[in-house]
């Protein structure tokens, strides 16, 4: 009897933990705190910082220090240092800024463009729809990384280039999803009624249809965060991301690539951070989808 109730208790805890993705929430909170408080230069207080060292601070005496749990490592540099003595942990804390700000901006831009295009296509039907959807299909099929590389070369590396380059194609999935939703909803009676009372197409789309698709939109936005972070990291890895003075996880992994035999930690920890954040975003996205819009479940 004791045994059964014990297992039931375990199962109950397991079930409730499945309802709320605790681990992803903790990971994402930590990352957001890191991004905000890496230092407080945005409040005019660059000396107050969460990162133990400045991002580009070199201590040449401590080159290639291994992480603290390895022989030769110390708690002064918890995750070790790279080949010019920069603290890996501090650079990772600063790197969270780039990943988060780029992905949030890109997803805002992409979702606005995609929603406007997709909703207009779904509501207008006919030639407008055919045209918008052909462009969408072309944008979906085209490798995002290539267009991002092309833009990075032609406009020169900067934060806004990266945001522009990643937004250039990311709107397409939003457009396709929104079109599908609007095509379905525009046949509903309440839309017909709004039309009869003389509401303009813009008013119908904003006031009557948009509230019905906003759940789907939020789900898609959450599910896309991980993908955008991955592409940003690949871009940085290839040297076409934000300028090299700003540390990013992708560029750190790239810098450690040819030093892997002497210092595997240089590229391992940033790559691990990318993996953890993308995984957390995907789990959070799954959870939000199940809560808000279970129809979208595929796997």
């Amino acid at each position, binding site marked *: 009897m004791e045994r059964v109730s014990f297992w039931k208790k375990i199962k109950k805890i397991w079930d409730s933990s499945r309802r709320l993705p605790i681990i992803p929430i903790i990971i994402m909170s930590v990352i957001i705190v890191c991004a905000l408080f890496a230092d407080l230069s945005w409040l005019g207080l660059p000396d107050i910082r969460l990162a133990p060292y400045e991002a580009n601070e070199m201590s040449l005496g401590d080159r290639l220090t291994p992480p603290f749990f390895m022989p030769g490592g110390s708690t002064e540099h918890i995750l070790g240092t790279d080949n010019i003595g920069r603290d890996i942990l501090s650079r990772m804390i600063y790197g969270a800024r780039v990943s988060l700000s780029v992905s949030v901006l890109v997803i805002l831009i992409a979702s606005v463009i995609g929603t406007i295009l997709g909703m207009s296509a779904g509501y207008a039907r006919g030639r407008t729809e055919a045209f918008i959807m*052909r*462009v969408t*299909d*072309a944008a*979906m*099929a*085209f*490798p*995002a*990384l*290539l*267009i991002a*590389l*092309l*833009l*990075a*070369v*032609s*406009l020169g590396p900067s934060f806004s280039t990266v945001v522009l380059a990643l937004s250039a194609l990311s709107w397409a999935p939003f457009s396709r999803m929104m079109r599908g939703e609007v095509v379905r909803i525009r046949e509903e009676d309440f839309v017909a009624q709004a039309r009869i009372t003389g509401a303009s197409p813009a008013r119908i789309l904003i006031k009557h249809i948009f509230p019905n698709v906003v759940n789907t939109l939020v789900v898609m936005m959450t599910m896309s965060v*991980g993908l955008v972070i*991955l592409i940003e*990291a*690949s871009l940085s*890895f*290839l*040297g*076409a991301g934000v300028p090299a003075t700003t540390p990013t996880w*992708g560029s750190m*992994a*790239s810098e*450690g*690539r040819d030093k*892997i*035999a002497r210092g*595997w930690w240089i*590229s*391992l920890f940033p*790559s*691990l951070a*990318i*993996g953890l954040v*993308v*995984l957390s975003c*995907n789990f959070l996205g799954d959870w939000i989808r199940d809560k808000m819009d279970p129809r979208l479940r*595929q*796997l």
Partner: protein
Amino acid sequence: MARFIIIRIFQTLVTLIVISMVVFALARASGDPVMLMAPAQASLADIEALRQYLGLDKSIPEQYWVFLKNVAKGDLGESIRTRRPVATIIGERLPYTIQLSLPAIFIGLFVSLILGVTAAVKRGTWIDTAVKFIAILGQALPSFWLAILAIQIFAVSLQWLPTSGTGGLDHYILPVLTMSFFMLPIMTRLIRSSMLEVLDSEYVKLARIKGLSEMWVVWKHALRNAIIPLLTAAGITFATIVTGAVIIETVFAWPGIGRLIAEAVIGRDFPVTQAVVLLVAVVVLMVNLLVDILYAYVDPRIRY
């Protein structure tokens, strides 16, 4: 059917023209090519002469027309760094990418078929969970990390395989395997969900009632129908492969198209970047056109 094919070819041409315009506009946005090409000690008159020689004194529409004519002739311009014709460089690099991606696609498809079908058949068991786990992990981990890790384990620590570069058959193992792993998650997910749908259908039930063996039902009747939706995903899969090629060729120092574009980006070599993007655009559009025609052929409901 003929009407459908003609319309689709026409649409493809229109898309191609739009893409070429975008690429051309970006080329002009990247700065004055004359300034990039002219030597530092060139006089103003020299620069003017070069501008005329390159046809850059003409109006933008005229320049676009010349650009189109050159592309049609196979003249993709000259690399800023090496001064060699871009078409020649691409011709040298392309075989390496094909040698790498064809086996990778084959292995990736084969493994994801086995994983996806098994997961669908054993739905809800630990096998399904394990496959889901691999798919989720594979989509989250950056592909360059997997390549770096593979080099660290198999080339640096165990010294079984070469770290990078080209050569004998052993040089292919790591890049091909990491590349096929790169496309595994998305393919496995697609196959699993499409297979689940088919396994629930009437004809599969009928095949079971007829008393056919489970093996036969799953791998013949069900799989054949589950593959059709995969066709539409071919375009997206191709995009994944191109992205994978850029990263994996860079990590493994593999002299293919992917590394070419990565080098061109770092060297700010615009003609090369532009040509590779155009080439990929053409291939992407051709793949999509082919897939659409094939799809309409397999499933008559698609045709207009």
